[in-house]
């Protein structure tokens, strides 16, 4: 069985997000006998500029064949203006406005789209929904297609340009039941073949060093945030909440924010911002945390929540995030907060009670073991793809390519 992934970025340099999820699936499935997996992607690793930084052509990465195609346009400043306008009421944007948004969001890769049109793979998997590679690719595919939407409740999901793209798919692979419910509600694709798959969790690694030593805080207890340190991930809010918490609850408790920094949180003596760390350090820091906090309201899966459970750490999640709430509720492995008050009360409860933390973490570990082991994930994914292939491809009549927009000032990082 030959499977082709189509994803806007691909590479070990791409940290977190849907593209990494695509790579994890591709690499795992590619190791299984009977599967031949390749990837069609852009020459860019930067989703803010779409600058062609990687050479076009075919390479191999961790056993997966990767075909790279140049982007035909860098991200233009016009994108930000249009995004601001459509964000207010995306569902009322015209079809042409929304198609322009998708085109400006990019990456526009005409050669990649041609490769999709000419593909003789058994099935093509588009991952995620948000980018031009998915919309343009789905329009021309001649073989069965599945989409991993990686969708959450964001303005872009309601743009009309995505409607035909979703409805043209032959199957969907969701991260969570909440994602499935959202996509079905927005696009009325409830009758399409689907599977709620999620992602597998890697075995915990680490060098056995104390997390506190790595953070430079010695034996102090700490909460831990893992991922990109970014305002939109709720990090500014988390830092502010934690600072207020410490004003009202003086003590040793610290907060470690571990991951690449997009937006520096306010300085605070009890908040440690590490920047990017090695995989081993990440696991060592996570293992010794009292609680792993996921403050983001916009997660479509959140692998770090599952990773925390595998090393015996309970989680505290944002009550407005459907994906992490689903994990916490179904597993019984964590609590949630929906205001500063509830943040304070849940942190109090978790920080003061070791047995309670252990009980929550154990419930989370069992849940992860039941649903998110790589071997069962791959087995279910393979079975689903075979069923999609058996049903065949539904032609996407009337689809037309997105407009290629090249005129205008390009966005520059740091400008």
């Amino acid at each position, binding site marked *: 069985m030959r499977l082709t992934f189509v994803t806007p970025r691909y590479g070990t340099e791409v940290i977190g997000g849907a593209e990494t999820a695509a790579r994890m699936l591709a690499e795992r499935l590619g190791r299984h006998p009977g599967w031949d997996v390749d990837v069609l992607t852009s020459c860019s690793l930067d989703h803010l500029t779409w600058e062609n930084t990687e050479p076009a052509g075919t390479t191999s990465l961790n056993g997966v064949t990767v075909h790279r195609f140049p982007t035909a346009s860098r991200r233009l400043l016009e994108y930000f203006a249009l995004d601001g306008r459509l964000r207010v009421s995306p569902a009322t944007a015209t079809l042409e406005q929304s198609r322009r948004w998708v085109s400006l969001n990019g990456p526009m890769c005409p050669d990649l789209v041609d490769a999709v049109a000419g593909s003789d793979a058994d099935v093509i998997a588009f991952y995620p929904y948000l980018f031009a590679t998915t919309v343009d690719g789905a329009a021309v595919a001649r073989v069965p297609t599945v989409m991993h939407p990686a969708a959450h409740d*964001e303005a872009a999901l309601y743009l009309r340009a995505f409607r035909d793209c979703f*409805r043209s798919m032959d199957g969907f692979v969701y991260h969570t*039941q909440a994602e*499935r*419910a959202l996509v079905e*509600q927005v696009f*009325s*694709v*409830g*009758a399409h*073949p689907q*599977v*709620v798959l999620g992602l597998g969790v890697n075995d915990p690694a680490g060098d056995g060093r104390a997390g506190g030593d790595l953070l430079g805080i010695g034996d*102090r*207890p700490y909460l831990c945030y893992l991922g990109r340190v970014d*305002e*939109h991930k*709720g990090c*500014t*809010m988390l830092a502010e*909440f934690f600072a*207020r918490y410490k004003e*009202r*609850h003086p*003590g*040793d*408790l610290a907060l470690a924010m571990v991951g690449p920094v997009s937006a520096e949180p306010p300085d605070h003596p009890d908040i440690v911002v590490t920047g990017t760390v090695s995989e081993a350090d990440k696991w060592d820091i996570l293992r010794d945390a009292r609680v792993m906090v996921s403050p983001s*309201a916009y997660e479509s899966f959140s692998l770090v929540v599952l990773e925390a459970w595998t090393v015996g750490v309970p989680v505290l999640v*944002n009550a*407005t995030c459907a994906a992490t709430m689903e994990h*916490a*509720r*179904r*597993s*019984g*492995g964590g*609590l949630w907060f*929906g*205001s*500063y*008050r*509830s943040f*304070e*009360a*849940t*942190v*109090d409860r978790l*920080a*003061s*009670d*070791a*047995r*309670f933390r252990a*009980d929550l973490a*154990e*419930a989370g*570990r069992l849940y992860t073991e039941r649903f998110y082991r790589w071997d069962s994930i791959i087995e279910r994914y393979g079975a*689903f793809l075979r*069923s999609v292939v058996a*049903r065949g491809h539904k032609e996407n009549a009337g689809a037309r390519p997105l407009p290629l927009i090249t005129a205008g000032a390009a966005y520059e990082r740091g400008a």
Partner: protein
Amino acid sequence: MVSLPADEEAVDGSDGSDGSDGSDDAVADGPVPGDLDAVGRARYLAGVMAEIDDEVRRRRSSGDLPPNLERDLDQLFLEFSPVGSQGHARLRETLTLVDSSAFIDIAVPVESQKQAGTYVKRLIRKTISWYMGFIVTQITKFGWAVSRMFHLVVDHVEELEREVATLRPPELPDGAVPVADDASRWWAADAVDALRGTDGRVVHADCGSGSLVALLVEAGVDAYGVDPDDLALAPAIDAGLDVRAEPVLGHLEVVEDGALGGIVLSGSVQWLHPADRQRVVELAGARLADGGVLVVHSSTPEAWLRTAPPLVADLAPGRPVHADTWSHLLAAHGVRTVSVRTGGEDRRLERVDGTSDGAEVVNAAVDLVNELLAGPSEFVLVAARER
């Protein structure tokens, strides 16, 4: 009140600084979430969160946090949350964002790192204040008018929600409804025969363990299932079937018109609230493709009275209706009944020997009893969407 491992350790925030952070205290034994089933874990966690909510309310009423600071922190949280992400419950909170944005401050900050900068900014502010004041006053008035309108809408919505809540039937307790194993039922073959060769996907609601979905797939039908009870679905998921934890009404709402080749309705469908049943009928008519097949399995109303578990019989929002009633409802939406067959448990009394004395009177009574109380307990109705 759930029994928690750390009831005695629950935070006492009366002084606002319990010194609890970081301390690892030994705690009493208690239920371990990992040892509970999914329902038990959900209840346990709901209990914990209810206690935390009580604690939040207690602290809030104590006024230990300045109201302005609490409002600012809550707005910070809302800024990074999907608007209305928790349904109507957050309408009021989201409205505070509108309120706080409705006033536009004309006092532009003039501080600058350079002394001359502050002077220049102040001069500019003073020079254009007459102009900005005129514009901003109108925008602020508009903002307040919009905010006022939203307040009225939210008041109205909340009033409607309170009224609707009084009409809602009580929830059936967990485990009150037995999970159906439809493939072992007498009508499974009827369903498979009716749907064999169907063009398009076929959904079975409620599919339970997925046994009928599996039979349909074996027969070459592109079948999938939905069931509101996600625990019941576990065997189907393990078997690799396409099943989803959704109620039938919620599912049919998210399917395109004409997308289904067939629909099987069984299980809780028979005791839906009459308004919900009517909506299911409407949606079934719309979602079936032309020529699509509908199969309805239900208890007979008579059997329901004598066989439904007491809690289901008393608390279910609706009651099963006769096959004739289904036919009538479906016909109004372009779905015509093809056949009705009865089956299931049959406890009809036998008639006595007609030659014995008084047999005629006894048999008349037997016929009446059979008709009223002891007839077939179930029926399966097969219908088709008109082309």
